[in-house]
């Protein structure tokens, strides 16, 4: 450490966005790494040329967990995770900061997605769409979701704790049903196929060739880039804006009011915090985040039915918050990447294992034990995509893992990944002394 990290000599110094020198360095490093990620990085992204490394059996042709850098499929997962960061930050404002438990975040994501599609999508015989440019539909999606949040909040403000959780759960079911009605299909498209969503292209108005094309490959600043790389960069920029917004909100009057409500609502009211107003603000802000994220997510996926915005998605967000560490921005970011990339890691890992299982040697036999190709094999991961029984296929295994992880984190590490990080940091702060 360069100096005493907890010593602040002025209030201004303490409430900075990045209060310590270390944090500034980490932030800059993280941003640089983020924007380098979509490009090919020689050693890790493919089979190594170095003969010493090649001879090591496991990492000879790329580490299974680290070879994703620059890989097209992994770029898409990373973009997914970054969009989810935006949505999770929204839920963090509502649940982590203001203490209002919401199981309805998927509903607001859906509202955002279909508002975005209504404004920016292309009309067909069966669906609405106005083909407006992205600078309208992306904020418009957020505003639409925020308006719905404001409509819902008078009911929500009267309810407390689990009653609120269950009402917001009801919103999810109502939302999916609305997407199935005849008039809902005009927005959401076919219930099984979904509709196509607007593409992420920057236009001035409705002209043919976009000003900056993100959804098609081309060169930016003299570098040839695929659409995945461009989308990654754009989403990363959006995410950084929202992260800044989320960090900043904590330093403002609104942020302090929300935290006061979370800690003891009636005490906050006595101190002059207008409970109704600030809960409404929390709902609106959270839904705004969710709406923007929903529109981006739908646009990124391309085509999805309304039934995708279901309870599992809501629980996923709760899991992100709890695994990451509720109430903290850093924790929410870590949680999002962890929860979204975990299924892909499991899938990648099982693919990697099944490749190895073909060969010979100790790695192959270990892989064969872990995987089970035929029904009745003894192994926790099934390689068949549709198995009606145990062992579980990768998709089901992921859902079970979510549940187990939520339970394990809540029981053993209530502060989540953020708590683990704090412990590690404190250990090194005191090193080599134990206290």
């Amino acid at each position, binding site marked *: 450490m360069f100096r005493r990290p907890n010593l602040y000599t002025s209030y201004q110094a303490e409430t900075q966005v990045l209060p310590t020198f270390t944090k500034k360095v980490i932030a800059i490093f993280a941003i640089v790494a983020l924007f380098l990620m979509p490009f090919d990085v020689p050693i890790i992204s493919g089979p190594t040329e170095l003969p010493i490394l090649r001879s090591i059996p496991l990492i000879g042709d790329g580490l299974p967990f680290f070879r994703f850098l620059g890989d097209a499929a992994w770029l898409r997962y990373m973009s997914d995770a970054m969009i989810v960061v935006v949505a999770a930050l929204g839920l963090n404002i509502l649940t982590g900061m203001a203490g209002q*438990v919401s199981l309805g975040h998927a509903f607001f994501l859906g509202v955002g997605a279909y508002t975005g599609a209504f404004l920016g999508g292309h009309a067909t015989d069966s669906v609405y769409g106005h083909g407006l440019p992205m600078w309208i539909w992306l904020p418009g999606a957020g505003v639409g979701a925020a308006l719905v949040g404001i409509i819902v909040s008078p*009911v929500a403000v*009267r*309810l*407390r*704790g*689990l*009653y609120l*959780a*269950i*009402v917001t*759960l*009801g919103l999810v*079911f*109502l939302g999916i*049903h*609305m997407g*199935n*009605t*005849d*008039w*809902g299909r005009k927005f959401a498209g076919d219930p099984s196929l979904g509709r196509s969503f607007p593409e992420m292209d920057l236009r001035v108005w409705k002209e043919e060739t976009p000003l900056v094309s993100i959804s098609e490959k081309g060169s930016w600043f003299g570098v040839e880039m695929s659409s995945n790389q461009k989308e990654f960069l754009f989403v990363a920029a959006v995410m950084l804006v929202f992260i800044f917004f989320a960090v900043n909100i904590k330093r403002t009057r609104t942020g302090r009011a929300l935290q006061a409500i979370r800690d003891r609502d*009636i*005490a906050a009211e*006595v101190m002059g915090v207008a409970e109704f107003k600030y809960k409404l603000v929390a709902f609106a802000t959270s839904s705004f985040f969710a709406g923007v994220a929903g529109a981006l997510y739908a646009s990124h996926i391309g085509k999805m039915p309304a039934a995708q915005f279901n*309870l*599992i998605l809501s*629980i996923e967000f*709760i*899991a992100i918050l*709890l695994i990451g560490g509720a109430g903290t921005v850093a924790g929410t970011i870590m949680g999002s990447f962890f929860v979204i990339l975990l299924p892909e890691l499991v899938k990648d890992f099982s693919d990697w294992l099944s490749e190895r299982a073909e060969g010979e040697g100790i790695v192959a036999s270990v892989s064969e034990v872990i995987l089970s190709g*035929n*029904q*009745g*094999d*003894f192994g926790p991961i099934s390689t068949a995509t549709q*198995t*009606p*029984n*145990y062992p*579980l296929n990768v998709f*089901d295994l992921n*859902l*079970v893992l*979510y*549940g*187990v*992880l*939520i*339970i394990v984190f*809540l*029981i053993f590490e*209530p502060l989540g990944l953020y708590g683990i990080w704090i412990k590690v940091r404190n250990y090194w702060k005191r090193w080599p002394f134990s206290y």
Partner: protein
Amino acid sequence: MSTSQSKRRISNGAAFMIAVFVPITIFLIVQLFSDPAVFLTTILKSLAMGSTYAIIALGFVLIFKATEVVNFSQGALAMIGALFISFLVADETIPIVPWWSEGNLVPIRNPIYDLGLPSWMAWGLSFIVALFFAALIGLFLERVAIRPMIGQPLFSVAVITLGLEISLRVLANDSAKLKLRNTNTPWSGKGFNIGDNFLYWSFFAAMIAAAISVVAVFLFYRSKLGIAMRAVARDQEAAMAQGIPIGRVFAIAWGAGAALAAVGGLFATEPPIKQTGAVDAETSLVAFRALPAVILGGLDSVQGAILGGLIVGSAEIFAGQYLSGYTSVLGAGYPLVIPYVVMIIGLIVKPYGLFGTEEIRRV
């Protein structure tokens, strides 16, 4: 809050209730006289639906009253319970395909069916054994996931049950997918006609089961253990100081809750909820359909669970019967979301449900 204010709110609520209920009552009376047979079957059907919801709602309330936590995993427990019933009464197989059997199901024979009892009695005995197993699952889950959380924030415990729900539901779904899991009730598929309308015996079975569950729960709360449970719900620390074993009380609440969920799960496979009589992925959703009943009645009230279940169940059935002309506007399958609409309207009027205890907040 001053008295005059709270009085005014109640009268507002009453006015709202009158505004909602009077038109509905008039509409129903008109229907009664225009076609009595249809009306009668609808009433019986909605009573059956309400009873099923009430059974599941009772499970929620039992667990809530002891642990102050909404058990979101009730749906998964219902499905697991129904699966146990199915394993014992319908097909003599266990759901796991072990590695020695080369991909075939391993047959096991339920010994109760070899005793030479009449089939309905053997079914009943197996049913009780299945409930016992379901309760064991409840005890196990409580010990593993809930007991370590005593004293933690309630929200965390509720989220743990959400975690249980996802994991268990996937596991249960996978064991139900291998083959059709009938529950083979003695009354399955049978019934009689009133006019042109077919009535299933399962309607009456659900009502009887609900009545038995309600009586059992009421008697339970009068017993020493039930009183201990109420004391734990009121104040955990004070109950502990009085020498009440909180862990055991939690365990019993979860065991009983899981058994009730299993009964609910059984009726979730039968009409009026479903026609097939088999356990499948939809069985676990029944708890999410019963959740509005609990909330409407009030999370900590047994009467509330029954009344809430009946209101929500009848709203669903009556809306399905009499609003079917508006399907193009309301959308196909609209009866399934009617419980949630009723719940939201009810909560606008009474934020703690019909019979729920209002939380008194001290500064």
